[in-house]
């Protein structure tokens, strides 16, 4: 009976379908399901004596407004802040004109960031140009970019958010103050070129500045659990997008070099001094825009990525622990090994944090949560071993900037991992809500910032700028 629907009603149904599908929150399958409902309703009403036209109108009316429907689907699909913000408006889709303006402004900020990154070249600071041009000045240039690269780039990201979120002057001032108070010590301290404190300060600087970007991202409302988790999610998605785009960029560069080599033009200098640095810097802003504009794409990948890599990292850490137990080779206190371990632990923590942020906090424990516990506990053990190694070295040879930084970082991680393991265990045994873990992680974020700030500002004078 359903097949015998009037062609004009049939085309109306098709129109309604495409209208619904234009809402990004209503997926294909949802529309299939709703259409099935609509048809069942129409044929029932038809059986009750209504004409097909009338049946269609009544069925559509009962189905409810498309706006309400897509809003309800969006609410169900995620409790994420940005959708709530978008949904607070009347329509789910923003006007294309506004999107267009946003695109142009974003490109402006990206281009400005790329150019600003190259401004020092006007003053002869250009480590990208030619590696053969005098080794001493090349080293000094590299050191300048090591210290200032992030400082030159991230203000434009802040600027983009300031424009997009219409930040109040007070928030802009706060974020600006962080940048300035990081720039002053890095450039006025008499840091030894290539010395440990310089490298350490430069490595920790991005953490401080990224948190300042977070304040701008959240429109100044950085207190509270949900906004902070939102920023964590943004960070993870930004990282994934950036990696994807960087991979694409590498392929593009390789092909460009190859193609121009075939016609005997050497593109390497241009690519080295312009395309790579400008591309890498501009992408920082472009990717931030992408994360928000094309959110739904990455939203589907992210849980998959965490689900794939959480077990793999857990397996790797367990294997490493088993290896240590069997061979009796406890962690070597070599500097490189410790740095590698710290990088690994930071990565594990990032993975964990991102998995938490992507997780629905009112759901029950799953197998993945169990795997996460394995991951946390094995990371904790490795952290303890690394700490023991560092402490052993410190007691034997005394403090150096690297050892102190390693000690601090491992302690910061230890506290987080230990308490996370405890909360996760409680959650798996049903004593605790997942929200406790959420809250703990977001409450801990400023600790990273504080520690990084100490390394940037405090370490150089403490270790006499060595």
């Amino acid at each position: 009976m359903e097949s015998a629907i009037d062609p004009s009603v049939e085309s109306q149904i098709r129109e309604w379908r495409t209208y619904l599908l234009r809402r990004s929150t209503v997926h294909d399958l949802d529309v299939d399901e709703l259409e099935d409902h609509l048809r069942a309703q129409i044929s029932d009403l038809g059986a009750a004596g209504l004409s097909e036209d009338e049946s269609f109108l009544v069925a559509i009316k009962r189905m409810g407004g498309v706006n309400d429907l897509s809003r309800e689907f969006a609410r169900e699909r995620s409790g994420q802040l940005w959708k709530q913000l978008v949904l607070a408006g009347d329509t789910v889709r923003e006007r294309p004109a506004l999107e267009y303006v946003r695109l142009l402004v974003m490109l402006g900020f990206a281009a400005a960031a790329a150019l600003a990154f190259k401004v020092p070249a006007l003053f002869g600071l250009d480590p990208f140009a030619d590696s053969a041009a005098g080794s001493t000045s090349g080293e000094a240039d590299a050191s300048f970019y090591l210290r200032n690269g992030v400082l030159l780039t991230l203000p434009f990201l802040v600027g983009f958010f300031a424009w997009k979120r219409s930040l109040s002057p007070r928030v802009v001032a706060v974020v600006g103050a962080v940048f300035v108070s990081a720039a002053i010590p890095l450039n006025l301290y008499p840091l030894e070129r290539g010395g440990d404190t310089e490298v350490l300060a430069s490595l920790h600087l991005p953490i401080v500045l990224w948190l300042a970007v977070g304040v701008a991202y959240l429109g100044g409302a950085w207190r509270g659990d949900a906004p902070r988790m939102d920023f964590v999610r943004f960070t993870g998605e930004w990282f994934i997008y950036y990696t994807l785009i960087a991979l694409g960029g590498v392929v593009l560069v390789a092909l460009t070099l190859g193609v121009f080599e075939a016609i005997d033009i050497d593109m390497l200098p241009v690519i080295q001094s312009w395309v790579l640095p400008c591309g890498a810097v501009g992408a920082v802003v472009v990717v931030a825009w992408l994360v928000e504009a094309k959110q739904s794409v990455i939203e589907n990948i992210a849980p998959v990525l965490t689900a794939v890599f959480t077990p793999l990292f857990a397996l790797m850490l367990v294997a490493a622990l088993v290896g240590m137990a069997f061979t009796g080779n406890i962690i070597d206190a070599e500097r490189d090994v410790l740095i590698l371990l710290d990088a690994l632990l930071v990565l594990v923590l990032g993975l964990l944090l991102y998995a938490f942020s992507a997780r629905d906090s009112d759901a029950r424990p799953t197998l993945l949560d169990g795997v996460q516990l394995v991951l946390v506990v094995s990371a904790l053990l490795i952290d303890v071993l690394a700490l023991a190694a560092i402490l052993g070295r410190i007691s034997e040879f005394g403090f150096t900037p690297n050892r102190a930084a390693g000690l601090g970082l491992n302690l910061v991680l230890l506290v987080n991992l230990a308490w996370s393991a405890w909360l996760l265990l409680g959650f798996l045994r049903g004593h605790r809500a997942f929200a406790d873990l959420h809250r703990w992680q977001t409450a801990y974020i400023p600790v990273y910032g504080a520690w990084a700030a100490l390394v940037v500002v405090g370490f150089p004078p403490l270790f006499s700028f060595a």
Partner: protein
Amino acid sequence: MYSAAMHERGDARIAKDLVAASAMPLVLAILEEGESYGYAILKRISELSDGEMEWTDGMLYPLLHRLDRLGYVEARWVSPEGGRRRRYYRITPRGQDALSEQRRQWEIVAGALQNAWQSFRIHKFALSAVEG
């Protein structure tokens, strides 16, 4: 979370907050009777409430998705031969747990209301006896 649209039809019989609050246990209870699909669930709700509780139809589907995500129901597509495919929902053991928990809570609420109305009636009765 079920917005005003859930019950926007003019002849609102049951307040929308009540409809929203009872939506989940009602759907779970209907699925407890057996596997079903969206349109049939809505018909059943209308039947069970003598047509007093009616939703904006579309709002059932986000709710079903939520139940699916929470693991309370399982969904599968069934395509009969030569027919349009349809999405069927079945309650899971976890859904049954949730249902019995909901049921316990609703019984407490209903019991409390019952008692309150009882004492209200006795009170009124006593008052009218004194005055009469």
